[in-house]
């Protein structure tokens, strides 16, 4: 019974991490730096949903699409006005990392000024989020829907990535953007599109988090650290590796809490990270 409940929670944590790592992975594999501004899109998505759904009382589905559009746009614009310049200048990864960190910090503080620094809960009434009985275990409706939707999204993105023309273009840019450009693929345009998609995916993560437990403006970096770890864990170059990494981390975190207590939860991703780096630096799935 307890075991089944923990499995359900691991499933939810795993799919939420997977969602974040898919979007992050698209950006990471194409521009090849740890774009922590991705955490900003996570926040923007959640806060826009709060604004549209709870403050402006727009109905649920349109509010989600509007929020996803804005969080995508946020990352798209960050690329257009900041990162594309740096990438064209062939700036060092480190410069890009610092710039994205600065952008995340500025985003968090602006959101804090507008919405306040306390946790913001998107649900109009928390009691509307019913819990469902799943073979003796429990998940609430947000968690259950998130699992279904994210599984669908994983399948859709896997299909796009591996089976469609657009997917081949993305993979070409990921393999070598210079060569891709030589054969006529508009590199800048693809980057922009990937930033938009990534932003929307991060935004969806923010919405789910905000609906379920609430989001805080200062939590952007806190969310980015495990996502970075997962992407390395699974192998930076692999689509499926990221998803496997997400589940490994979810399992390890929950089991740590069960066996060692909650105060060690934050260190778990990093213990795993160091072990993986030492034993298998190319990640679990190599390509």
């Amino acid at each position: 019974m307890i075991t089944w409940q923990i499995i359900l929670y691991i499933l939810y944590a795993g799919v939420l991490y997977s969602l974040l790592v898919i979007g992050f992975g698209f950006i990471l594999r194409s521009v090849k730096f740890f774009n922590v501004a991705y955490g900003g899109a996570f926040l923007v998505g959640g806060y826009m949903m709060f604004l549209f759904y709870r403050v402006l009382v727009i109905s649920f589905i349109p509010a989600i699409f509007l929020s996803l559009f804005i969080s995508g746009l946020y990352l798209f614009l960050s690329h257009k006005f900041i990162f594309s310049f740096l990438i064209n200048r062939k700036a060092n990864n480190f410069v890009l990392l610092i710039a994205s960190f600065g952008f995340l910090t500025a985003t968090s503080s602006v959101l804090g000024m507008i919405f306040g620094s306390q946790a913001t809960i998107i649900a109009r009434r928390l009691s509307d989020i019913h819990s469902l009985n799943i073979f003796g275990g429990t998940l609430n409706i947000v968690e259950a829907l998130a699992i279904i939707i994210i599984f669908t999204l994983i399948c859709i993105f896997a299909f796009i990535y591996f089976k469609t023309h657009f997917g081949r273009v993305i993979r070409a840019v990921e393999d070598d953007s210079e060569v891709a450009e030589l054969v006529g693929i508009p590199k800048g345009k693809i980057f922009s599109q990937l930033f938009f998609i990534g932003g929307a995916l991060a935004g969806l993560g923010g919405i789910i988090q905000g609906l379920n437990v609430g989001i805080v403006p200062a939590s952007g970096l806190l969310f980015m650290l495990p996502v970075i770890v997962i992407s390395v864990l699974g192998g930076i170059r692999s689509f499926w590796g990221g998803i496997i990494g997400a589940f490994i981390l979810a399992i390890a975190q929950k089991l740590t809490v069960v066996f060692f207590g909650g105060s060690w939860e934050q260190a778990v991703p990093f213990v795993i990270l160091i072990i993986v780096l030492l034993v298998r630096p190319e990640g679990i799935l190599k390509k």
Partner: protein
Amino acid sequence: MNKTAKIVVGIVVVVLVIFGLSSMSKKSGTDSETVKIGFMGPLSGDTANIGQNAQAAIAIAVDEINNAGGVLGKNVEVIYEDDGCSGATAANAVSKLINTDKVVAILGAACSGATLGAAPIAEAAKVPMLSYCSTNPTVSQAGDYIFRNVPSDFFQANYAANYLMGKGMKNVALLTSKDDWGDGLKKAFTDAFTKAGGVIVSSDSFDPASKDLKAQLTTIKGMNVDAVYFAGYTDPSIAGLKQAHDLGIKAQFFGADAWDDTKIWSELGTLGDGAMFTVVGTNSSADFKAKMKAKLGKDDLIYCSNYAYDGLKILAAAINKADSVSKTAVKDALSKIKYTGGVGSAEVMFDNNGDPTTAAYIIKRALGGKLTEVSQ
């Protein structure tokens, strides 16, 4: 060094010199139009909500004091500084308040780390400092000029332990915030509860920034306890109580004074039904909640803000009692003060360590998003 670099360095040096001169040429606070009191709290970072909420509470106190004639016939002016909840930044903030603003007294800080980082500087400069939310036991020994009006964790943990025992709840699980506040409550509660004959079935904690307590709660669910002593601040408490409801945990949830935050219960609505917590008994707290709601436009009152509001009034009372802006006189007045009618506690007196001597607690229960006092 190339030309641009020279220009940049030049500008920087000029700005710094102007800043240095202007900071030194500021007028001293004692002979000017107002009586200056410094405030420190986290205004940025993870815990900014605590500082910002306290700031709003203090603004209310300032208006009330000034409308009632101010202090020593002058208006009170509060200078707000950010301590980022860290000892090093707090040292900057307190040094600025003491040396350039020449404040008479300081209200701060909230985080124990910030209070303890600032305390030696205030102590050396002989400026009285009153912390409104640091419960770390080492604050008691921080110095003669260091006071706090937030009661030690010992009182409420003791009260909670005895109440639960009295209700026949002998098996309790602990779930506490992993910071000095939560760890302090955990220790005090464990001592008091085991002494009274109860059993601590499990003891777990969570990161203060975390809002996912599902794994902790799932293990608690498997243990068949009578009550869960849950010491968390607003955000993890909302999440944790919601998750406990999802899991269908039937045990009694029992919290600490941080739960006296209207936001928790208005967000949770019926989900919070039955949860209980200890809080210092006062008559005026409902009135104060209404004032905060009018100020902020929403239900949002973090429990530190009660003490911050009282703290400013206590400082003002001490300055009036000392009848001077001499810092030593204010400190002496503070140590002898007996302040009544506060919103955080009914009566405040300080012992030799600068801690409140007593605190009288009551128990509140949530029902349908509203709080009612439990008669005993």
